[in-house]
């Protein structure tokens, strides 16, 4: 049976590379049907997404990252690597899945696909290095949709 997949692409598209997930979502929509995966673009992970996440088999978080070499694509399922404390308006991926598990009784398989950004200043375009790495990010997500295997480090 085909797993139900939810792709949560989050970030701020007016903060240059922070919007890389939204760009990736555009490309993914061109390659995937709704039967393959539901794709949600959002500025941040809000509590109501816990309900959506708890009703699928696999959640793929796409986000920009910092700290690595710009353009570095990473795929992992260790949510503890993602810093942040959350608030009433937004949650970390781990908190989102925790909330869904407590309220709806399901914790889906999950992966985080990130790309290290170079420029997070005001702007609606990606830096050249992130733009050139975008196809790898998209391919990594496409692989995860059909098979729970990270194709990036």
């Amino acid at each position, binding site marked *: 049976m085909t797993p139900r997949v939810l792709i949560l692409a989050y970030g701020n598209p007016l903060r240059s590379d922070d919007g890389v997930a939204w760009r990736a979502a555009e490309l993914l929509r061109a390659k995937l049907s709704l039967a393959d995966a539901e794709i949600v*673009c*959002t*500025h941040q992970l*809000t*509590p*109501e997404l*816990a*309900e959506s996440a708890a009703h699928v088999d696999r959640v793929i978080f796409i986000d920009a990252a910092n700290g690595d070499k710009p353009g570095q694509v990473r795929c992992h399922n260790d949510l503890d690597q993602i810093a942040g*404390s*959350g*608030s*009433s*308006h937004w949650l970390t991926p781990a*908190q989102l899945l*925790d*909330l869904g598990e*407590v*309220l*709806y009784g399901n914790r889906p398989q999950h992966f985080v696909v990130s790309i290290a950004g170079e420029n997070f200043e005001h702007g609606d375009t990606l830096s050249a290095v992130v733009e050139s790495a975008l196809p790898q990010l998209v391919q990594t997500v496409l692989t995860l949709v059909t098979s729970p295997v990270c194709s990036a480090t």
Partner: protein
Amino acid sequence: MAERKTILIDPVTRIEGHSKITLHMDENGNVEDARFHVTQFRGFEKFTEGRPFSEMPSLMARICGICPVSHLIASAKACDALLAVRIPPTAEKLRRIFGIAQVVQSHALSLFHLSSPDILLGMDADPAETNIFGVLAKNPSLARDGIMLRKFGQQIIERLGGKRIHPAWVVPGGVSEPLSQQDRDAILKTIPDALDIAVRSLNWLKQASETLSEEISVFGNFPSLFMGLVRKDGSLTFYDGTLRFVDENGIEVAGNLDPSRYLEFLGEKVEPWSYLKSAYYLPRGFPGGIYRVGPLARLNVVTHCGTPLADKALAEFRQLQQPVPLSSFYYHYARVVEILYCVERIEQLLNDPEILDTHVRAVANPNAMEGVGVAEAPRGTLIHHYKIDENGLIQWVNLIIATGQNNLAMNRSVLQVAKHYVKGDKITHGMLNRVEAVIRAYDPCLSCSTHALGQMALEVQLVNTAGEIVDRVARN
């Protein structure tokens, strides 16, 4: 001689910026004054000067990530006035749905995510637990209901506007796209569950409030004016109508006021200690013209809601205090009544035979040099006022937002709570939480970050006149 002291709460939180509270103590350790400072400065009125007026709705929506729809609607209405067009009836109905869907999601955020921890877990609860996770541990079905109501409102916004945050669907002259039958039917399917949740939430709130009679008696429980939009028949509206003021006895002070002539009856005062202007009812002067806006005010100015369940709930609401509910704690109650109304009204509007009409935009060039747009945002009456030049470029902007209109009342409420609960040199979490909770009742944007999950960025200092810290409480 005893020293006069000041308690500083800094930061309380943000209004997409920062705010703080200072409590001024007299020589005997009693609170004698309180100030709620908003240190945020956004400058939208200035930096939009010179931009084409048609950009205003999209620019103004960026003021807020929680209620961008209200700014979109008020801004688009101001632009409609510049075009001097009457927008198509279907566009108006779609804008109404859009606006009240946002009211549902915003009220749900305020009640379930921000304030329910105080109500459910108690005002003396550990701040590390007063958040959505604390709620789900104690009452998971309440947390689920909050999430579902938020989702209900946001999905309507997304279906109509294309995205949940900063949708640009509302445009000068109407809306950019008609509603599809598929989307109409999908939204209608979600109505019964949303109504069930709203009714359940009201029952929960009624029961939970029974243990909070002391807080209710001092949470902004004082006479003031109330202002809001009403329809011609006196019923509740978030989109149009005329402005009405009533006093603490529910008696009309002024009615049938043209919102576009707000400068004739609303004044604004700037205080040196805050970027947030204080609005007041001009004929009564400052600060005697103190008035409140938002859910409590709206329910106090209308004759009825106009939908069956909300009207029944309104009748019960009016029994809470006589002659009219004055305590700002009842903002919470009023929010749930409004959620009921909004869900019922959305259903009515979606079943309107014209709702799928594809003529949803009037096109024109500017025909007036000045335009005012007024709508009821979740937090209260919102006014956008623009002037343009002959090329359609913005020359002057004035915005009057709900939080500013409630500023005087919030200050007075903080003072009332502080006088009741703050005594002597020791600061307790329960005391601080009540000072914050009364601000949360108004749901200004600053309530956003007061419930960080176990890491509330809050520091309170008790400082004497020599600048020495007598007591300090930090919540990090």
